[in-house]
């Protein structure tokens, strides 16, 4: 995957889908790597003893790991400087072993202060189609 050119704004239509991003099943190693790389050292994501003491059956994925995948969904579609905002709601916990797919759709196409823009709906879901994260992104053409 290399950085894309901006899609043709005129050709985009409401409901158009971004190329989905499919992730491999989440491993404990992936959570350990994300713990170190992100600087989020909350033990609930990497230490099963701690997670169980907090009433969870097991460690679970950082919400912001999925947010990073949504970032990849976007930067696979447009060069990053075109992304003006990304707003995410964490709807459900993402568990070890789940296969997450990130998807996005053109929700609205408009011009604002002379700039061509697209508002996207983005989400992550597991292999059963259960939504984990949902959100919106604004992309503006230069």
């Amino acid at each position, binding site marked *: *995957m*290399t*950085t894309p050119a901006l899609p043709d704004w005129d050709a985009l239509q409401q409901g158009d889908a971004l190329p989905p991003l499919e*992730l*491999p099943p989440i491993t404990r190693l*992936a959570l350990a*790597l*994300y713990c*170190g*790389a*992100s*600087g*989020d050292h*909350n033990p*609930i994501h990497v230490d099963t003893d701690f997670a169980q*003491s*907090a*009433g969870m059956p097991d460690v679970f994925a950082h*919400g*912001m*790991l999925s*947010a*990073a*995948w*949504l*970032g*990849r969904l*976007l*930067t*696979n579609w447009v*060069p*990053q*400087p075109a*992304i*003006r*905002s*990304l*707003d*995410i*709601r*964490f709807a459900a916990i993402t568990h070890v072993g789940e296969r997450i797919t990130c998807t996005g759709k053109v929700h609205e196409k408009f011009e604002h202060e002379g700039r061509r823009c697209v508002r996207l709906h983005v989400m992550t879901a597991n292999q059963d189609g259960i939504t984990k994260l949902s959100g919106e992104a604004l992309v503006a053409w230069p």
Partner: protein
Amino acid sequence: MIDRRYIGHTLPAFQVPVEAGRLRFFAKATGQADPVYIDEAAARDAGHPGLPVPPSFLFCLEMEAPNPAAIRELLGMDYRTLLHGEQGFTYHAMAYAGDTLRYEQRIADIYDKKGGALEFVVRQTRVSNQRDELVAQLRCVTVVRNA
């Protein structure tokens, strides 16, 4: 209940250097294989002055605060009861390896739902660079589960 008088409270600003090695580690941890995020030459070929900070990483750098638990301690929140509810980014300028970013955090709101069973702390963070240019505004909603 969290003391509502902390609404509007600002925390001491702090600065964080953006390190190329850390960005490469983040790329590995998030499965990012696009050379623009790993290889400085590829980044420059794509028109960037250095490795770009990817969209969600500004949140990670926020945890490089001198005391990342400052708000938790100030408000008396127990780690075990917390969930990340929402995270927002509004981008104004790109950030790159080699930049030094300044973080200014403010407790924008505290409110509750379900008769206090759930409390919400909204933190807003302004991020600017070493040229005093606005890079992004971050919005983080933490949920406290009061059993």
